[in-house]
């Protein structure tokens, strides 16, 4: 049984199919990359999984249980956490409080003092211990992204959806972020990541799904995807495909 499975997932905005009849699956322990040109429907797919939107038609299953149609907070409590493309932290709250929210309201009911110690642990895990009491809005973008990850992890997810976590990072930050994702995988958490940064995708992912204009056009290991004529066409245009 797949950890996460989507069948015929579709959604229209006005007349446009943002996501069109997509079948996908994610197995426990994997790091799956979700790539595609801008506007391909990647974040929309995340929104459909995390229930910010409802698929119409289509169904999504988590651990065999249908989750399409549930409210976002229920999805979180079932064990799916996410970060956002535009970082959505709680700006006026201190860094540690941001993480504590996740610890208190996530998948497991927690006592207040357990939540605080869990939050401290997670801040260490992502490397934010030094700024624990800084208001979140005063952090750099790279730190804010890490904070979002810490908050998501605090909800004790089985599945973590990362939306363009690597965007805007310099090479050092990028390496650190890639390390972080590997650490998360080691903890036993399954990860799906939307990315444009190819180095990260090729470097960490076990499997890659490619979307274009809302449809799934390719799926496979990084090596398969890198050599796929379809994918190269989509990213670079037909005339750029070298004939073999």
């Amino acid at each position: 049984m797949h950890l996460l499975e989507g069948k015929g997932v579709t959604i229209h905005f006005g007349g446009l199919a943002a996501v069109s009849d997509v079948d996908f699956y994610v197995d426990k322990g994997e790091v799956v990359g979700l790539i595609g040109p801008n506007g391909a429907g990647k974040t929309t797919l995340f929104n459909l999984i995390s229930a910010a939107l409802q698929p119409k038609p289509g169904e999504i299953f988590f651990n065999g249980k249908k989750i399409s149609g549930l409210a976002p907070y229920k999805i979180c409590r079932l064990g799916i956490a996410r970060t956002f493309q535009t970082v959505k932290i709680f700006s006026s709250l201190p860094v540690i409080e941001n993480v504590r929210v996740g610890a208190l309201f996530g998948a497991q009911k927690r006592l207040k003092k357990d939540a605080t110690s869990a939050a401290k642990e997670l801040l260490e895990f992502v490397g934010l211990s030094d700024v624990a009491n800084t208001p979140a809005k005063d952090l750099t973008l790279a730190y804010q992204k890490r904070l979002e990850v810490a908050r998501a992890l605090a909800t004790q997810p089985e599945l973590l959806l990362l939306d363009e976590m690597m965007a805007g990072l310099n090479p050092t930050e990028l390496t650190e972020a890639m390390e972080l994702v590997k650490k998360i995988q080691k903890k036993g958490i399954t990860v799906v990541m939307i990315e444009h940064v190819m180095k990260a995708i090729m470097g960490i992912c076990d499997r890659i799904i490619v979307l274009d204009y809302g449809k799934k056009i390719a799926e496979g290991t990084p090596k398969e995807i890198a050599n796929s004529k379809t994918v190269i066409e989509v990213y670079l245009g037909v005339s750029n495909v070298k004939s073999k």
Partner: protein
Amino acid sequence: MNLRSLNWKQLGMGFGIPLIILIALALLPNYGWEYGVSLFSYFLVYMILTVSWVLFSGATGYISLATAAFYGIGIYAAALFHPATGLSLPLIVVIIIGGAASFILAFIVGAITLRLKGIYFAMFTFGLVLLLFQVINYVETSILGQRGRFVALESNETIYYYLLGIFVVTMMVTYFIKRTKYGLALQSVGENEEAAAHTGINVTMVKILMFAISAALMSAVGVIMATKTIYVDASTAFNPMISFSPALMAIFGGMANLYGPVIGAVIFSYIQEILQTGSLNNYYMLIFGTILIATILYLPNGLMGLIQNLWKRIKGARSAPARG
């Protein structure tokens, strides 16, 4: 938590000063200053309404214009259950009845509107006072044949003590909400609803419950004030000005912490008292409306915000290095 680890100074500041003020207020009627009791009652009414309003609208950003509706329900509860003639229930019971009625109404209104964008909520609440007026007026005049009711009169002292009690309850509710995880949830919802929902918070329920709690507190005030004005009918009970004043007081005072609304309430209820008994009686809606617009434009963080900014500037000036 052992005694030595408590920060006594902070505790003293946090609890001590308010406690002293509370004791002073509780002893007020003993000084024989009749006007003072009446005036402070008036302050307390608006302090409670304003803090209750900020408790929900300040925290979530959903602007409620329904304060007058819940206050009116309280007034009617007093008219029905604490009348001048006939069977009259104890005030505390009537407060609970009025509070419960408002809680239920607010819960229903919240369940319908708080799942949607904030503008629907504002739209729904601003007409609510007119709706309640029409419905109750219809029931009273056409079905029950009543042309106004009389509430049992209570002494100024009784009114004062009940209001003080409701105020203490309001502050305690606010304090406990802030300290528990529900306060954190409320703050998260106010910061970023979508993120809060995806972090496992049942955002809609948090909003609905906070709205209902604030409604119950507003109702309690209405119950008590009915025993002062005695005559009650649909048009006096449901007065849009009561939706307006707490919002003005909160915005003017500043909503970053609890002192802002309280100070705003005291200042404006005093101004209102002066205007209503003076020659400017016919102008006070005009004056308050203008002050609100001016505050929104020029004092976005309210009076408290202004004071805090000035304080920061003074402190900054003191610690800046001297030019050499």
